[in-house]
Every structure is written in structure tokens, then in C-alpha cells.
């Protein structure tokens, strides 16, 4: 089979990336701490972890402005639930305290009343730092996202694939303007068809992910609106084609339109969301930071890049099939 190697590579990359996307566990984290307010005296704290392995010997302390209060009793209910008793002294300096359990930090866990000039530091944070479990290769466990961080390997490659397909399309359109070839026109429109499929998949998967993390299927985010406008621009490309009966005229006009469409795609997906004046919920846009400036994110990249490459190759392959079948139809209709 012609070009079989990159087609097999597409399937292999997708298999490897998708299996790994589910196989790799999230790193341990504290997900819930109650109560959220502590007063001087004995305090009973319930801690819930995720993928943790709580033991009665683990180190637990409250940190307030660099000063530590150690736990006086630790009772583990199971690997992810613990009941902790603390004797909180008078005179914490800061109003917010962090909780550290087994080397895992829950920042801003408690609001404390009765502030003072500081306490006697128990110093339990400095000892035995290697207690932190080493779970091997894990995905970051971020609040709000949690397990849905795995979506990164499925939702984002849809957009990468769409952009590559629209790029293929505009490339053939520009070439077609030079040589007036209807073959180029067929290639351009086939790529837009497959690109729009990936755009639809990206919008749908994004809507579900947004519902789970941001609370609504559609938010007024620049990147969402940009993607929607891009989809409309390319739908209009198809409408424009449908309105011109003459094949050569259709090829030329839609090729010119396609050049502008692609420029608008670049503007809406890459330029507008990055303007500092606009806030976006998407990482890496507006005032938000990208996934890549998180501490641990090479772990995501190891799976993410193969996934992107696999989906781009699959999309290109789908475009190839669509273009060839369109050509066959033209030949048989003649």
C-alpha cells in the first residue's frame, strides 16, 4: 500500500497516546479539608485525599506564615480519609493557614480568628522531607480539573488537526489561483470538509469539558467565540461554493475567499485570545497561564504531543480519502 508507513504511524500514535491518557494515574492530592475555620484550642480536622495512602505515621502540620503546628493525633480511616486532632495555640500571625499532610499541601485550608504576634514554632515541617510518596509517572492533580485533565489529550488535538487541515486547504487554494486547476479546488474543499468535522468535534468536546469545569456548556470566552466565528466563516465558504454554478468561477472565487478565511482563523484563534486586554478561561490566553508553566507539565507533554501528531495524521488521511473519492465521483460522472 502506498504511503502505508505514515498511516500506520497515525494508528500507532493514537493507540499509544489514548491508552496512556487513561492508564497514567493522577498524582496524589488533598481534595477536601473541613472545617475551613480554626480557633485556638483543640480542633478536629477531617481530610480527604485522592490517590493518597494515609498512614498513622504520616507527618501532618498546619503552616501559618512560616510557623508550624504539628498534629497531636492522627487517625486514618482508610487510605484517603483521616481524622486529625490539633491543638491550635493562641496568636497565629496570618489569617490564612495551609495544611500539609504527608508532604501534600492544601493551601489556604483554614481561616483563623484570634490573631497575634506569632506562636512557638513546632518545626515539624523541616524533618523527613523524603516522606513524600514517589508514585512514578502521573498526571498533575489540579483542583477543578481533577481527572478531566485527561481531556487535554483528546479535545486539544481536534483543534490542532482542524488548523492543519485548513492550512492544507488554503495551500491548495493559493496554488489553484496560480494554475487555475480544478484539482486544487477539489483538494481545498475536501480539506475544509474534514476540517469542519474536527471543528465540530472540538466544539462539542469543549462544551462538555466546559460544563464540568467552568459550569456552563458555553461561556463568553474569547476563544470559544473565536472558534464559533471560525466555524461560521468556513460554513459560509461552503455556502459560497454552492451558489456558483460555473466550476472555474467557483474555484477562483472560493479560493480567494479561502485565503481571507484562513487569515481570519489565525486572527480569531491565535491573535485575539492573546491580547492582554481580554481575559480567557483557556490556559495560555489573556491573563491566564498555560499548562506549560505548571511545575510538572512535561508529564502531560509526553502523551500530548504523540496524541496531537496521531490526530493530525489521521485527519490528513481522512482528507486524502475524501479527496480521492471526490475525484473518483467526478471521473465516473463525466
Amino acid at each position, binding site marked *: 500500500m502506498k504511503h502505508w508507513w505514515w498511516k500506520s504511524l497515525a494508528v500507532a500514535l493514537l*493507540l499509544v497516546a489514548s*491508552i496512556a491518557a487513561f492508564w497514567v494515574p493522577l498524582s496524589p492530592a488533598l481534595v477536601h479539608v473541613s472545617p475551613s475555620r480554626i480557633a485556638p484550642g483543640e480542633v478536629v480536622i477531617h481530610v480527604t485525599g485522592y*490517590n493518597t495512602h494515609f498512614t498513622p505515621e504520616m507527618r501532618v502540620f498546619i503552616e501559618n506564615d512560616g510557623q508550624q503546628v504539628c498534629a497531636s493525633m492522627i487517625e486514618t480511616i482508610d*487510605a484517603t480519609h483521616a481524622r486529625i486532632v490539633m491543638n491550635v495555640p493562641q496568636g497565629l500571625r496570618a489569617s490564612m493557614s495551609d495544611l500539609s499532610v504527608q508532604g501534600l499541601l492544601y493551601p489556604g485550608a483554614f481561616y483563623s480568628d484570634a490573631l497575634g504576634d506569632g506562636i512557638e514554632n513546632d518545626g515539624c515541617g523541616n524533618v523527613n522531607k523524603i516522606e513524600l510518596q514517589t508514585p512514578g509517572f502521573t498526571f498533575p492533580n489540579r483542583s477543578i480539573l481533577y481527572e478531566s485533565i485527561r481531556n487535554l489529550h483528546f479535545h486539544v488535538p481536534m483543534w490542532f488537526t482542524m488548523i492543519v487541515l485548513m492550512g492544507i486547504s488554503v495551500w491548495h487554494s493559493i496554488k489553484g489561483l496560480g494554475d487555475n486547476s480544478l484539482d486544487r479546488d477539489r483538494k481545498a474543499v475536501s480539506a475544509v470538509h474534514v476540517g469542519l468535522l474536527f471543528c465540530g468535534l472540538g466544539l462539542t468536546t469543549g462544551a462538555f469539558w466546559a460544563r464540568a469545569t467552568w459550569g456552563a456548556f458555553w461561556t463568553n470566552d474569547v476563544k470559544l467565540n473565536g472558534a464559533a466565528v471560525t466555524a461560521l466563516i468556513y460554513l459560509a465558504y461552503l455556502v459560497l461554493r454552492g451558489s456558483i454554478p460555473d466550476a472555474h468561477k467557483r474555484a477562483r472565487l472560493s479560493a480567494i475567499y479561502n485565503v481571507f478565511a484562513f487569515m481570519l482563523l489565525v486572527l480569531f484563534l491565535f491573535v485575539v485570545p492573546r491580547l492582554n486586554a481580554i481575559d480567557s478561561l483557556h490556559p495560555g490566553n489573556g491573563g491566564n497561564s498555560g499548562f506549560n508553566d505548571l511545575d510538572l507539565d512535561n508529564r502531560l507533554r509526553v502523551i500530548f504531543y504523540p496524541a496531537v501528531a496521531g490526530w493530525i495524521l489521521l485527519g490528513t*488521511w481522512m482528507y486524502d480519502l475524501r479527496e480521492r473519492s471526490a475525484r473518483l465521483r467526478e471521473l465516473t460522472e463525466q
Partner: protein
Amino acid sequence: MRNFSLLTLLLLTSVSALGQDAAPGWLESTLYGNGKINVVILVVAVIISGIGLWMFSMDRRLRRMEKNLKK
């Protein structure tokens, strides 16, 4: 061709090695312990392989038609 198969082999072995490192005791009681995530992985693998096979068969079908048309 040889380069490609070598690359696939490398990718596959590296990922299986990752999986082994990632399974200390606590994971047996959470993610892998009840065997449910393995089912998801199996389902995903079957779907992707199925789509891959479909793509290859479609590719072959088109190629046959292209050949017939050329004659």
C-alpha cells in the same frame, strides 16, 4: 520502513515501561485495583484499532477503484 518499525517498537516499550513504574502499592487499591480502568483502556484500544482498520479498508477500496478507472 525499518526505521519506522523501530520507532513504533520504541514507543510501545517506553509506554509499557512507564506503566510499570506508575504502579506502586497505593495504585493497586485505587486506579487499577478493581480492574475497571483496564476495561476503559481495552474499549479505547478496540475503537481506535477498529477505526484504523476501517480507514485502511477504505483506502484499499478507493485504490482498487482508481486502478479500475485507469484501465
